[in-house]
């Protein structure tokens, strides 16, 4: 069965081909294998994808296809396997992630990447405002944060207001709904104005209506600096909200969907 044929009927994928322009994120021949006990499990087997600045790309694939692994590698949370061929399988803005030191990768995540997770992953001890400010606290040193404290709090408050959460600033995550938690998580991801937003099944834990609102929120993000979005999902309807859909199957991007 042709994979192109298989995915040809996907409803509203606006573009099947990347638009012309500079690739903000370039993934070429990406391999990643995990070891489960004595068994090696190849998750990504030469995945290739390019994401242009300002693009919203949905990575669509079944469970276990390597979507989340791809996202984590793009975000510098893990390092790809070394294989013959491509020495620098992931480049951000032209710079290979593989050449970055651990500290540079930390900085890359803090400054240039915002993560949104399926299960929100808010810290339960912190209130909504503190959760959003957490990224800024990580990015800036004590003095840097203290100098910018007022501006950063204002930004966090504005972000939360833009997501309709002004009345929830001092609430703990346990005191708000799932949709609100995900909006807080998006606000947290956007706090440091990253150039790249990586969303892992952002609606996977929400009902359809709430999920739709979350996607609206993500769509609204594109007006700001973080206008490049990579979202992984197994839901074709969710993927359809993106500019472009990339299909991932058995650790490879399906030919023709790049």
């Amino acid at each position: 069965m042709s994979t192109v044929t298989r995915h040809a009927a996907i409803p509203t994928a606006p573009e099947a081909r990347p638009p012309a322009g500079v690739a903000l994120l370039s993934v070429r021949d990406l391999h990643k294998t995990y070891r489960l006990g004595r068994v090696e499990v190849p998750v990504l087997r030469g995945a290739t994808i390019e994401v242009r600045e300002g693009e919203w790309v949905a990575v669509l694939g079944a469970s276990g296809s390597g979507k989340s692994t791809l996202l984590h590698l793009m975000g510098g949370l893990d390092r790809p396997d070394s294989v013959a061929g491509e020495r620098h399988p992931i480049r951000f803005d032209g710079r290979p992630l593989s050449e970055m030191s651990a500290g540079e990768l930390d900085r890359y995540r803090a400054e240039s990447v915002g993560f949104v997770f399926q299960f929100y992953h808010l810290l339960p001890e912190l209130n909504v405002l503190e959760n959003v400010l957490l990224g800024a606290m990580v990015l800036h040193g004590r003095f840097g944060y203290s100098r910018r404290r007022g501006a950063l709090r204002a930004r966090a408050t504005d972000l939360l207001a833009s997501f309709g959460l002004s009345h929830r600033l001092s609430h703990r995550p346990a005191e708000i709904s799932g949709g609100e938690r995900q909006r807080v998580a998006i606000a947290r991801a956007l706090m440091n104005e990253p150039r790249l937003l990586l969303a892992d099944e952002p609606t996977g834990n929400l009902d359809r209506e709430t999920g739709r609102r979350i996607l609206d929120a993500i769509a609204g993000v594109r007006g700001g600096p973080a206008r490049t979005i990579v979202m992984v999902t197994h839901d074709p309807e969710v993927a359809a909200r993106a500019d472009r859909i990339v299909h991932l199957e058995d650790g490879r991007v399906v030919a023709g969907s790049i």
Partner: protein
Amino acid sequence: MASPYTARVYQALLTRKYLTTKVMPLLASLGVALCTAMVLITWSVMGGFLRMLTESGRSLIGDVRIVWPNTGFPHYDDLIARLEADPEVEAATPLIETFGIITLPDGRTEGVAVRGVDGPGFARVTSFAETLWWKPMAEPLRKDRGAEDPRLDGRDMWRRLYENGLTLTRPDPETGEPKAAMVLGIEVTDFNRRTRSGFYIPMVIPQQTAEGGLTHADVFMPLQGELTLRVVPLDSRGRPRDVQTRVLPVANEFESGLYDIDRQTVLVRFDALQSMLQMNEGLRLAEDGPDDPFAPEEREDRYEVDPARTTAVLVRGRTADRDLAGFKARVERIYAEFAAGHAGEVPTPSVIVIQTWEDANRTMIAAVKKETALVLFIFSFISMTAVFLVLAIFWAMISEKTRDIGVLRALGAGSWGIAWVWLRYGAAIGLVGSVAGGLLAWVIVTNINDIHDWMGTSLGLYVWDPAIYVFKEIPRRIEPDKAAFVLAGGVLSCLLGALIPALRAAFMNPIRALRFE
């Protein structure tokens, strides 16, 4: 780029949040507090006992003593004059040390250490005046809640006994003339019963009758008591002469705080003991050489003036508290000059024994120090449980917080930043626990005697019974340097306990952490 070592606000925020929202760390803090308090209380009390013991040991020695035992050395007046001419020397006094046998009114004989002292001079160099027991008291002892101490009755007798003790004299009942007397260690006779409140009550004295029976005499030793003292004089070569016996009245009794001293020591007026030991100035048969059993019986006796001798000179310094070793060196220099002025008559500087009070009590102090160190070691070892308590709690918390660690890594936190969250958290638990433990220890130590009294009256539990121990109360002072050391130890223990979990958190795979359920 910010330095990876720059302190981050998120670490402080998480430390505060974890500390105030979780029960487990509070339990860890409580454990640290109890361990800290235990070590600090032990150290303070044992250290206090050690201090009391060493101060007691110093009470009848002064700062430095110059000793030439047994035969003694002459011209000590000159030595004392040279010493007292030195600006750093406050006072010096002669002392004769020997052994003797006393016969008590009930017929018992006891071997004792006999010290000949010049009362007023001895009081200037040592704490002799303070150690005299029978004296007027304005306030009861701290444990004497009922003010039952007989010395509190305001009678003039106590003042007279005190003065008698200071001068080592007692007025002759017939002539009123002061006679040379003895001051006994308070435990020597067994005629004083030490109460739980820490004071002594004189007891009736059992006496043997001429028929071999026993009767009881209501005799208070410092008022009516007399003892027979026997000593063996030595000639200048250390050979024993005839035993000297003298009946001496008792002027007072002293309590140094060291049981061995109080049990085995009697003080006699210097001139009286010097005379008994034939160490006073006098015309004596010259000793020409060692005993020779084959020497002819007939020989020409030769007499010469034998100068007065003492076996020791005690010295009190003005700066000895600050620099005891320096003061000792100064005394050594003065003795060297003295020896040079009396060459051939007094021991040379290379053989004379010059000791500080610490040197003199070294064995006793070292033993108590070792006991203190041993107890501290045991308690510190027990306190290591705090390390494992923190380790276990942190291990569990890090398992619980695995996903949070993944989130922090996703937000850009570095490995060492994550480690520092937990180390900082451990330090915070240690700080809170140590400060709480320090406060607990302070409350307990400063009120330890009241707590002990309460335990005694309510539970019948007297751990430190003044009727048994010579210390009238449990030391209740926390030394700031010790407290700081123990508190720092508490924080360090927690840091140590947090280290392994912190490293585990630091090197956790962020993806596995994010996927942790």
